């Protein structure tokens, strides 16, 4: 760079100066012209002389650099231990300089190498996730695919279009934000603020705070966005207990990386706990309150907030196997009664095998399972003839992903969910026994796109047996966020 600048300047100057005589001819006085020409000649000579000197200096410096790069530092006056080798072959050192110089010669057509990392102060990306589907169910979107980002039924669905931003705020915080758009079956576009939060990077004592609006760290999949899921749709038990929008709310989370010899992280999330993305808690619709009229409970104190504790540990079982296990809870009031509370408990397990020689991360085998249980204390609603009762729901999903060949992943998921009997069960889409099997096959042309085919065999108390086939596509523009394990 430094040596290129004088060349470019010199070129510019020479071009500018060579234009001068033409312009001078227009002037009337011949003597003036001669004087100017003489001056020009002098200037030109001086300029050429300087240029010659400079290029000589540059060449000399370049040779010195070359010599230094090849030889040990000059201050190394003591005889080198390897001194026996150099005298035997003095030639190669000398021939290095011209070879190097020939490669380094710069022309204006070449890009100028500038160190840069990230184009701006933030990483920006845009993602799209869309599905086309066939189902034996005429009401797939109302009965069997209940997640906000699930396919909306037969035909085409735009599951999500997402703008994501992240970056370092300053030396103390990192910031994340994503705006998520989807289109419902009526063609209406919905815009959701997905997550907006800051994350501390420099707190003492291994502590970290996350604050803003974010997906609660409950189990594994709740923290993932739809495009990170291994399947087209949300697991049934997560949909029922953590909600169609996942458990996502304004709040703060404190985490402590415990100084044990293996990885253990303890977290406590505190959330506002209100609205459709706090489904089992202070949500306002009949699905969330299981048929009761929502009470609009207000916050009276810290006891009315939603608390989400989690502990997770990980072990490298061998050079090729890793295990991550976690336990989570969710505790807070719900809107079905004045004193009604909900409690959710979850266990999650993730195991991955990847051989020592993996090509682009393939092959691999990954097993992921989550089991959840919820007690929902439903209040009495005399107007709608609803008794006070405890609704218990439980279930699990277990999935195995096999990256059998570079680019290709085959998956199989099995799920089961059930609960006790409730007064509103006949109308409740989010309760009752249900079993689902979903094999799928995903192709990742690059890290920026995927194509997925999935079949669902679905059996539920409410709808009998249904079959569905989904074809999903995804693309990503812009910066690709780092993968989490």
């Amino acid at each position, binding site marked *: 760079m430094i040596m290129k600048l004088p060349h470019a300047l010199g070129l510019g100057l020479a071009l500018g100066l060579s234009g001068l005589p033409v312009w001078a001819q227009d002037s009337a006085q011949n003597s003036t012209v001669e004087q100017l020409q003489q001056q020009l000649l002098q200037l030109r000579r001086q300029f050429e002389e300087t240029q010659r000197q400079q290029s000589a200096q540059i060449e000399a410096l370049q040779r010195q650099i070359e010599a230094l*790069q*090849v*030889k*040990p*530092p000059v201050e*190394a006056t003591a005889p*080198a*231990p*390897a001194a026996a*080798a*150099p005298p035997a072959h003095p030639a*190669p050192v000398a021939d*290095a300089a011209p*070879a190097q110089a020939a490669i380094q010669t710069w022309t204006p057509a070449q*890009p100028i*190498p500038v*160190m*840069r*990392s990230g184009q701006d102060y933030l990483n920006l990306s845009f993602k799209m996730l869309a599905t086309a589907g066939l189902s034996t169910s005429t009401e797939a979107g109302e009965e069997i695919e209940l997640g906000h980002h699930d396919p909306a039924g037969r035909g085409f669905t735009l599951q999500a279009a997402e703008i994501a931003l992240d970056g*370092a705020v300053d*030396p103390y915080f*990192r910031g994340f934000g994503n705006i998520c758009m989807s289109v419902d079956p009526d063609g209406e576009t919905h815009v959701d603020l997905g997550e907006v939060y800051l*994350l*501390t*990077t*420099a707190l*003492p*004592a*291994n*502590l*970290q705070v996350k604050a803003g609006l974010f997906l609660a760290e409950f189990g594994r999949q709740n923290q993932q966005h739809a495009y990170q899921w291994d399947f087209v749709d949300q697991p049934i038990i997560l949909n029922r207990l953590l909600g169609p929008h996942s458990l996502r709310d304004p709040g703060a989370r404190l985490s402590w*990386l*415990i*100084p*044990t*010899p*293996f*990885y253990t*992280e303890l977290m406590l999330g505190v959330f506002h706990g209100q609205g459709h993305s706090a489904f089992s808690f202070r949500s306002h619709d009949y699905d969330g309150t299981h048929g009761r009229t929502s009470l609009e409970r207000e916050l009276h104190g810290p006891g009315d907030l939603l608390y989400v504790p989690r502990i997770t540990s*990980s072990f*490298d079982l061998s*050079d090729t196997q*890793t295990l991550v296990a976690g336990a989570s809870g969710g505790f807070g009031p719900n809107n079905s009664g004045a004193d009604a509370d909900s409690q959710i408990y979850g266990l999650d397990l993730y195991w*991955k095998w990847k051989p*020592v*020689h*993996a*090509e*682009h*991360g393939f092959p691999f085998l990954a097993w992921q399972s989550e089991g959840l249980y919820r007690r929902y204390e439903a209040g009495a609603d005399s107007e709608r003839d609803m008794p006070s009762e405890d609704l218990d729901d439980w279930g699990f999903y277990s999935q195995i992903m096999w990256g059998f060949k*570079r*680019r290709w992943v085959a998956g199989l998921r099995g799920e089961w969910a059930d609960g006790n009997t409730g007064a509103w069960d006949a109308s409740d889409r989010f309760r009752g026994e249900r079993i689902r099997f979903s094999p799928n096959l995903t192709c990742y042309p*690059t*890290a*920026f796109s995927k194509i997925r085919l999935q079949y669902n065999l679905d059996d539920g108390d409410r709808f009998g047996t249904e079959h569905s086939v989904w074809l999903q596509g995804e693309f990503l523009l812009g910066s*690709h966020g*780092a*993968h*989490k*394990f």
Partner: protein
Amino acid sequence: MNRLDQPLANSRARWPSLLLAACVLSSPTAWAKLRVVTTTPDFAAIAAEIGGDRVEVTSLGKPTEDPHFIDARPSLILKLNRADVLVEGGAELEIGWLPSLMDSARNPKIQRGAPGNVYASEGIEMLEVPSVLDRSMGGVHPVGNPAFMTDPVNARIVAERLARVFGQLDSKSSALFNANLKSFSDKLAGKLIEWRNRLAPFKGSRIVAYHNSWPYFARRFGLQVDLFLEPKPGLPPTPTHLAQVMAKMKESGARVILVQPYLNRHTAETVASHTGAVVVDAAGFPGGVKGTEGDYCKFMDHLVNSLADALGGKTPSTQQ
């Protein structure tokens, strides 16, 4: 006491009992040593040369692992959390996994811009910096090809940098670091002449590589590595592209295919059998091929010798 004791002093205050005992038992002599974490084993080998017994070096990536696709396992968070120095290549080599680990590591000592963060590509003259960024061209690195450590001159630049950083963080040992730097540089200077001589007869030879990881090596030793089995960086080989490569190999007499241990050797062997070429197991890192663990010069020895053998018509003796 030096500054390295501070984090432990914190945890001592918090955990007077069992957990501290566990830490102490697991690393009894680690207290005064600098804990150096590197993303790839080549930086680890050089950090060990320079740091000697005053550092404890760990590489996050294994020598056989593709540095683009390292799993962000939680155990790596712990290593970063306890590190005094992080050596990363930069140039977006680790972009797919390191940032999420750093988000969780909560260690200000190694954050970008901190004294303990070494961004090794700084100070390296990067090659193949694209003038246009377009992902339809495949996995192109916007700041240039990140595989710069196969040029011993670059290895020396990184070694100097590490000696300086280690010396800043552990000033009592800076004389030792400088002495280690000098002996490493001397060794490297001697070796460079040896490697040059070994490859001198093959100057200008055309060599095929599975992935474009060799521009720095090729420039240093006057070789021409410009045929790749991948049609575009990071995309798997297609039959059409391989047919073109084979035609060009026959035309130009290219007889050697370089394959890193984490890539598909089978494809390279198929190409080799059709063209009479030889497949050379070219480790990208020390330890990628047996016998080169933790030693930069041994790694380069293996690379240079197996390549020279193959170019000279000998079949490589070590096959995996």
